[in-house]
């Protein structure tokens, strides 16, 4: 067999074209390359595994249904996929206004299990909740950009394409979000140092 493998990003466009022609294996490769990133993106915004899985499924179904509309010259496939993800999240939060980004019971249980000592385990859960609550005090844009930059390690260029903003604007939003966190966190950090010292 003479088929060659396609894994590099510059060949993503070839995969998309093949997928637009109905090649299911090509879409499968695209899926493998992106499913983790998209799932993590959704999880960071919902902090709930089941919800993240449901929404990830919805996002990829939409991507498959819309694959014929994707134009390589307009944006990278990754960016296009993230845009679908972000729009899906906006719709989700619009319909579920009561949904808050809090740690759930499963996360608590897992965090407690990860630590052998109950004292440090409880402390870890508290810190986790603190970080979550601080992020909740940011604007959605600030929160999104901080999570994409710090947790998903996306570049500002990628973030700008996803958010449909300029790079400079995204950097400014990131900076303001960090300043806001710095403003609300010092007292908490001080307390944390007291508890752990």
């Amino acid at each position: 067999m003479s088929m060659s493998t396609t894994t590099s990003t510059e060949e993503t466009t070839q995969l998309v074209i093949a997928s637009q022609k109905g090649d299911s294996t090509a879409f499968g490769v695209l899926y493998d390359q992106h499913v983790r990133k998209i799932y993590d993106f959704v999880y960071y915004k919902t902090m709930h595994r089941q919800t993240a899985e449901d929404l990830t499924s919805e996002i990829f179904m939409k991507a498959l249904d819309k694959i014929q509309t994707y134009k390589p010259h307009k944006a990278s496939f990754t960016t296009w996929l993230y845009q679908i993800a972000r729009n899906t999240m906006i719709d989700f939060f619009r319909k579920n206004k009561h949904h808050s980004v809090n740690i759930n019971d499963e996360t608590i249980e897992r965090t407690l299990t990860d630590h052998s000592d109950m004292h440090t385990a409880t402390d870890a859960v508290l810190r986790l909740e603190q970080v979550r609550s601080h992020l909740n005090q940011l604007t959605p844009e600030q929160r999104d950009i901080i999570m994409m930059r710090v947790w998903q390690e996306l570049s500002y260029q990628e973030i700008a394409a996803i958010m449909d903003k300029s790079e400079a604007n995204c950097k400014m939003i990131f900076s303001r979000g960090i300043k806001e966190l710095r403003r609300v966190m010092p007292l908490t950090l001080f307390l944390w140092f007291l508890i752990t010292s």
Partner: protein
Amino acid sequence: MTLKQTDLTVLLEELYNIDPSLQEHEAKLKELLRELIANKPDTEFNEQFAAKLKVLLMERQAEQSKNSFFSSLFSTRSLPALLSGAVIMSLVLVPLLSTNTPKELRGSSDSIAALFAAPSITAVKKQAFGELNVPAGSSEAASSPQGMGGDRADQAAGFGGGGTAASSKMIVAPEVTYKYIYKGEEISGLTDTVSVYKRIKGTATQQELGQYLAGLGSDMIDLKKFGSTKLTNFQLADTDKKGYMIDVNMEESMISVNPNQWWWAEQNNCKNGICPELPRIQLSDMPSDEEVIAIATNFLRDYGVDTSNYGQAIVENDWKRWYEQMENKSEYYFPDALTVVFPFTVDGQTVYDPSGRPSGLRVNVNIRNNTAMGLWNLIPQRFEKSDYTGVTSADEILNVVQRGGLYGYMPYLRTEQTVKEVSVGTPSQVLLQYSDYDGMRTNELFIPALLFPIIDAPKDAPYLNTHVVVPLVKDILEKHKNIPDGPVYIMDDVKTDDTVTTEPAPLPEVRILPVQ
């Protein structure tokens, strides 16, 4: 999560470039960013969820392209031109799964056809197939050079010294054993990373078909009571042409075609299960390789099997070696069927089995009527590809060569034992078809290996293989390195446990001697 200093430095530099005044708060910013990074959530990513979603997406895509598939199928274009790979599948399954199929099966037909039609290689993460060094006792074995086998899991480590109680499965070492001596060029070109291919088998539509068939109902038994079921294989009979049986193994993603024994019995005038004795095949009746390959190739072409993805066809001609060994050649029974192998090729490399024979699509040809009797091992060539650590030591490789390959023998010396030398030449790089059992399931892997040709062997050893194969995946070589996978022999000075009965192994080449 471990915070890399570079991550923190990069983030801080970015912030200072955006707003230089933030430098005044560097200490607090460092703590803040450390806290953010350290509390990056574990997203609980579930591989099973991802795999299931992928299957749903593939089936959805197949459903979306169904209309164009069926319209092109029933156009004036010929079927072989439309589909590559196993068009046999389309001949038998597409009429069955037409647009009149119940709704719950509408996605299945294209999924099945797509499964058997499209060769592919999908790259996955490094070491995606898990550890490949599960203990040798749990692996499937290939046939050994002398046809010896044995239950490897039962074999005790009785080599290297005495004092070990002998297992009832141990056998006495043969009088003659072989030592493989390398006579080729320096082994080079070894790399520390190699690509391992895993064949993709099975399909989610097995579940759909299983549920549908179980739901059809029966007055004799309620199949739905068995809960979730899946279709693992089915058989079709062609009764009006050449009398073939088509077996479709969905679990293994394999098609085989065999003669319908009843139809062929009728053709050969068999009555009440008794067939007239057929005249013995003579040497002059044996066709040339070219003739046999032509029969096999025409058979495949007639049924729309595309051989362009296979290597050069070869005929398995072991009979010639055995015939040459016969002292009284007039007593030799020539085979009335020969097998043609169309070797698999993956990423341009030919595939071999552990005994050094090409592995691939097999077609049986009946010598008496010059007809192909069937085929076996027709598989969709769909693989995942993952990088593993390669073997870089030529010495390690030659150690395995010396004993005749992965499943060779350690030449335990007995006072009566004769060691004969076999010369092997410069190897070529190939792929080895290897079964890796991880304790729950068998993965069919295709791993890089070196194929050493035997260039000189004792004339009285027709049962030796023609090649020695040594894998180039470090995990697999490690697994087989110290434990020979052939039988373990009783040493002359090993005391046996009185409670254990040593039974002779039923092997014609070995003469059983009493244990001292």
